[in-house]
Every structure is written in C-alpha cells, then in structure tokens.
C-alpha cells in the first residue's frame, strides 16, 4: 500500500499515497471539501452528504470513496455547490436552528458551512419544527435533539475515543435520532471531560455544556476568527446564491 497515485480535483493535480479516501487526500493537499458528519479521528460514515463530489458522472461521498489513480474529481463546481446548499438547507429545516439565541452560534459548523456556501437567508423549504423534549437531567450536560443533524459524531466519539457507548441511533426515517444509553443522560456515566461532550464534537448546539454558553463575544468566536475553508491552499469560495 506504499504506492503513490495521482488524480485531479477540479483540475488541480493531487499526488498521494494509495489507500486514502478522496477527502483525506484533498485535506493533505490543502484542498477544502465541506463536511459535517466527518471529523478527524473518527471513522467516516458518509451520511450528511455535504462532502459529495462527482467522479465519472457519479455522485459519491468523498469521505468514504477511495481515491484512485487517474480520477477526475469535481468538487467546487456550480452543480455540486447547489446540491450542497440544498442539503445544508434541509438540515436547517429539519430541526430548530435559531442562530441568534443558540449557545453554539459562532462555533457551529452547520452555520459556518452555510456561510461558506453563501446561505444567509431563509429558504424555500418548509420548517418541520420538531418538538422533542430536552434532556436536562444531567448536572453538567444538556441535550437538545431538536438541533441534532444526525451526524453521529457523538456516537462514534463515545464509542471509539471514550469506550463508553453513551449514544446510539434510534428510530428510523425522519424519526431517526440520537438516543442515550439509559432512561436519560443522568442515568449514564457521561462526564464533561468525555471526547463525546467536547465542544468540537457536536457540530451544532445539540450537546451543550451547562454554564458554558456565549463565552466568546461576537467577532471572537471560533469561526469568526477562522471561517471554514480559509486554510486551504487555493483560496476557495463556496460562492453565493444566485
């Protein structure tokens, strides 16, 4: 598996060792592909579909698709950008995302990806407005699944990094959600120090550490300082909506 392969992303040549996913190879080459369900250190699962790219006319998730020699990958094209925007909008409309009053505002990846893709206003889709009860049972952690985007990062972090299995998917279809390993969070051995509870693990404001909201002023929040996609070699723009 030590062989090197060459392929192109939007015409830019990428040289990488074999056996990586397209996303990994792009990351190593400094090319940004937007994502939500994928995070460094966790197994990719290809569920949010934001990281889709086109190869040979076929649309695939770049976080799970192996990079192969000679591939022509379309990443930052109008078609793909439009799909990504619509998928991000779907996530907004599926849950309750009220940025101005959300503790995660400014460090929320859903919000940051939206800005990257040029989404700044309400969209064409209907709001589903879920009304699931908030789990505030735990002393230090609050769970508001109405903001959950089903990325499953907490599930994987708890399993692989903490070895705890605190979370898991329950239900199916539009009722699929993240469930807790017990009657409620207080009945589990969840701790603030868990990787699953880290501020960076939940990309939205679903897992919240109590007494930890609004700690950075506007202008100094995580993505105010460094918007998504800014450390890529080629300064990319997700573009703005027509």
């Amino acid at each position, binding site marked *: 598996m030590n062989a090197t392969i060459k392929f192109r992303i939007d015409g830019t040549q990428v040289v990488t060792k074999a056996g990586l996913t397209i996303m990994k190879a792009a990351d190593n080459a400094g090319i940004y592909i937007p994502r939500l369900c994928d995070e460094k250190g966790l197994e990719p699962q*290809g569920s949010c579909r934001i990281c889709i790219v086109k190869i040979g006319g076929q649309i695939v998730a770049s976080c799970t698709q192996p990079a192969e020699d000679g591939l022509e990958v379309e990443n930052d094209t109008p078609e793909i950008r439009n799909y990504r925007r619509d998928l991000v909008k779907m996530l907004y409309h599926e849950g309750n995302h009220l940025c101005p009053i959300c503790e995660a505002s400014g460090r929320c990846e859903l919000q940051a990806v939206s800005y990257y893709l040029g989404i700044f206003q309400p969209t064409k889709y209907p709001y589903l407005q879920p009304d699931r009860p908030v789990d505030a049972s735990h002393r230090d952690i609050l769970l508001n699944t109405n903001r959950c985007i089903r990325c499953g990062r907490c599930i994987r972090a708890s399993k692989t990094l903490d070895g705890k299995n605190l979370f898991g998917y329950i239900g199916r279809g539009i009722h699929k959600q993240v469930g807790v390993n017990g009657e409620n969070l207080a009945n589990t051995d969840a701790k603030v120090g868990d990787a699953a509870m880290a501020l960076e693990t939940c990309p939205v404001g679903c897992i919240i550490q109590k007494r930890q909201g609004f700690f950075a002023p506007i202008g100094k929040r995580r993505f105010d300082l460094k918007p998504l996609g800014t450390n890529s070699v080629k300064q990319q723009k997700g573009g703005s909506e027509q």
Partner: protein
Amino acid sequence: MEEKKRRLFVKQSCEKFKNSRFRLLDILWEIQNGLGGIEGPVMEQVGKLIGVSRVHVEGLVTFYAFFSDRILGKIIIRLCDDIVDQFFGLDKIIEVFSEELGIKPGQTSLDGRFSFELTPSIGMSDQAPAALINDVVFPKLTPGSVKKIIRQLKEGVPVFKVDDTCGDGNNASALIHSSVMNNIRHTGKVILSDSFLPEKGLERCLNLNPAEVIKEMKDSGLRGGGGAGFPSGLKWELARKAEAEKRHVICNADEGELGTFKDRVLLTERAPMMVEGMTIAAYAIGSSEGIIYLRAEYAYLRPWLENILEKRRDTNLLGKDILGKTGFHFDIRIQLGAGAYICGEESALICSCEGLRGEPRIRPPFPVEKGYMGQPTIVNNVETFCCAARIFEKGFDWFSNIGTDKSAGTKLLSVSGDCKKTGIYELAYGTAVADLLEMAEAHDTAIVQIGGASGEMIGRIDFNRKICFEDLATSGSVMVFNSQRNVLKIVDSFLKFFIDESCGYCTPCRVGNVFLRERIQKVMHGDANHSDLDYLRQLSNLIIKTSRCGLGNASPKPVLSSLEHFPIVYASHLHEPREGLQRQFNIQKALEESRRIAKRRSMIYDPVYYDTN
C-alpha cells in the same frame, strides 16, 4: 409477568441463541412474542447478556416495525394500508375494526387484548384488503367478515382457528393452513411449468467444476429478479474470486415492493426449487452456509420452509458431502426479518442477518467482497435461485432463448388492482403491457404502475411498451388502476411509504421525501402554482443524485414519472396566485396557536365572533 419471571424469560431467550449479539434479531423476536413488547429494562438486560449497550438494543427495537418498545396486545392486528387496499374499501374496514375493537389504529385496548396497527405491503395485493392477525393472514376482508373475525376472537377462539377455509395448492397443507390463494393465472416455461425435474440440475452441476457452473450461469444471461437486474453469473464469479475462508449464499425473500407477491407464491409452491438453486450457488462459489432471509409478513410460511429444509437434510440434499460429492457441505438457516422495506437492499439485509439495524453499508467494499460477517456473500432473489435450478436442468441455451436479447427467461408478474384476474403471471420477457392487461381482463385501465412504488407510472399511450430490462424494468409488481382513480392520491401514498421506510441514514432521503410529500399535498389541495412543479423536479433530482442507496435513488420516481406521463392531472390542480398573495397561506390556521395561548380571539380576523359575543 412479574419481574423475576420476566428476567428469567429474557435470560433464556438470549441463551437460546447462545448470547450472540449477531442473533439479536432472533432474540428480540423471542422476547417480543413472549412479553408482547421490549421495554427499557429488558433492553438493558439483553444488552448486558449479549455484550452490547442498551441503546444498541433500543436502536433495533425502534428500527424494525414489528418490534415495539411498549407492550402490545395479545392479539396484534396489522391491516395493510397500501393504495390498492385503499381503493378497495380500506376506510370502511378501518372503521369497522375501530368500532368493533373500540380502538383506533396505533392503539392497544385497555384490557391489553388487542393492538390495531396499519402496515405497508404484506404481500397480499391480489386479495386486498388484507390483514395479518398475529402470524395469520386474513385476505379479502369485508365489513361483514371483519365483524365475524372480531366476534370470534373476543369469544376466545385461537387466531389460527378463526378462518377455517383453505387456499389452493400448498396453502391447504397442514404446515401452512392458510386461506391465502395462490392466484396463479399463467404458468410460463421456466418456473411454474409442471415439467420441472427436481434435483436434475443439482446433479448435473456436481459433475462440473465450479468454474464451469459459473460459466454456464453467465452464458444463460440470467439477471437478478429483484428489479436491479445485475447479471447473476457475474455476481457469483466475483464472490468466488474474492479470497476468503468462508463464503455465504443468501436468499432474499424480503419482497417489500408495493404490489409484489410473487415470492409468496414461490415460497409456497416452489421452495424446493429455490433451495436447489441456493445449493447450486453454494457449490459454484464455494460456500458452506446459507441463509433464507424471510420477511416477517411471511412468518406463516416458516414451518413449511423449515420442513422442506429438514426433508432435504434427511435425503442428503443438504448437509455433509451432498449427493455423495466429497467435501461439498452446505446447510441453510432461516432468518426472520422484522418489518423493514429497506432490508430488501442487499447490504441492509446482510446487516439485519448480523443482528444490526437494517441500514445499507458503505460501498465499496461490495457484499461479493465483504458481506455477511465480513466474508464474500451473494444475495439473490427467490426467483433468481429458482431460475438457476432450472437453467442447470435444461441447459443455459434453452434458457437464453426465452425472452429478449438483454433479458433472458421469464418474469413473474404480480398483478393487482382494477382487473378481474389479479394474481401471478409468468411471462417471457418482452411481453407488452397491453397483452398483460388483456389477460388480466382489465378494462378502462388508465394508469399502470410497473415495478412498485419505485417503478414507472405509465398511461394509455405507453401500453404497447414491453416488460424487459431494455424498456420497462421491473421487480414484478404491476398495479392496474382504472380511470376513476386519482393519480395524485397514488403518488401521495407511495411517498408516505418511502418516508416510513427510509432508514434515515442520509440527509436527502430522510428529509427530502418529507418535503416532496408536503408539496404533492399542496398540489392536491389546489394551493400550488407552476413554480411548485419546478420545485418538485429540482428536489427530486437532488434526492436521486445525492442519496446513498437505491431507496433514495428511487423514491422520487412516482413524482417524476407522474409529472412526465400525467402532466394534465397536475395542470388541472394548479392555480396561479393573486398578486402578492401566497395561496397556501391560511390566516385562520396561522392564528390558531396564538388564539390558544392568548385564550382569546382576534378582533380583526374574527369580527363575527366579537359581534355575537
């Protein structure tokens, strides 16, 4: 049940399957049947016993429709609510059930005796409306028969004794004993013909080497009968070539496509042929273990199938050194599903066999490389295995001469809806829709849905099109609708099905289908304008292109297909908005919640109310 007894029962249920987490589906079936439901403490206990987390168990219980996290009644009535049932008087049947039982769909009676639920696609569209009561099928329901059934159940008559009539063929055998009818209307050359000589094909195979078997399979031109049409011989070859210690043969008997019921008839009448085909496949790819994944709706066929497997073990058609072939060992177990359409998808089906939620896997790797338990696996349809047995009996060239160039052989079509002769038609590929309609004595047909909800919806102008992979590919479902039927109602019903059956894994399928249905209903209510049709097309395209598996790739098909073939129906529902007004906006509806919270009515929008109070 008191707690101590319950805990013991759960413990025994897990032990029955060696406390193996890979058999979680079977364990949960045991508990569901024994306790009537799987509640939190039981999930916790099961998890501890088999070494998984409680939320993992909850994940399965809440994924599969036949499991419940609350205790259901002793008698569970699952009434099929497909579009065909709807068109054949479902509303009235629901009403009678509700009246007789005193509960609505989704409820359990206070005395804990009855639960009443609606369920999709129980595989009885040719004898709709139909219901499952526990495992027993009650076809052709009428208000009168429902009253009689409930009266008997209330008197304490056991469910299997309520309806003492028997269907035709093996339905009347002691092990099935069901009032389901086969409704075989046309027997073709390959599968339903009487000329089949059992075990001839298997015997011939065992005299060939596996590579020769695969070559003949490829040369026969057989393509998968589940609808996707992947060349079966190629699938076998890929599995054989993949390096591994063990390989697996799985028979997909989970037909869940709306309007299909061919596998029901095959399992009833051609199960030995199917098992013979599986055995041939096992020999070809080098497998010693097989699974029949049987959908929960067909649980009534399980004793029958178990008996067939047992008989084959007794006659050395399964087991060690089959038919004297040294070193060829193969046996089969039955895995009962638990109510999930998505498990018809091969990688989801494999997950389900491993005791997981039935969610499609990331590909690559494909099941032929890494399938069941991480080993190379072929998953083929019931019909495909039947064809395989026949191909080796009669020769690949005999088979490839039937049908068309790219679609060899025959296809079993499940015909339901507005025609006199609903049932099974085995016809050579290439038969025109119009010919089928004539055979089925369908008059005044306006709409034909080919291939179930994920198939094509065609109108009169296309009735000369042919059923084959080159033209109208199909899993075998053919739903016939006359000119009185509402296209949009059909589309809406299909979308509801996809929303309920989406596994929810990826964003476009989980959310997109909900949005599609919202907009179709807007059209139905006469609140849509032209821009809504563009929205429907765009959204459909997004779901098809970006979804992760076949379900999402197909779920917008009813919308696109009806837009293409029945544009006038849509046009007649559209209304252009008055300047500056949103037609779907209803001020009274929008005010409802505010009124409730404020506990008073609006002076501006309810002037009449103020006048009279």
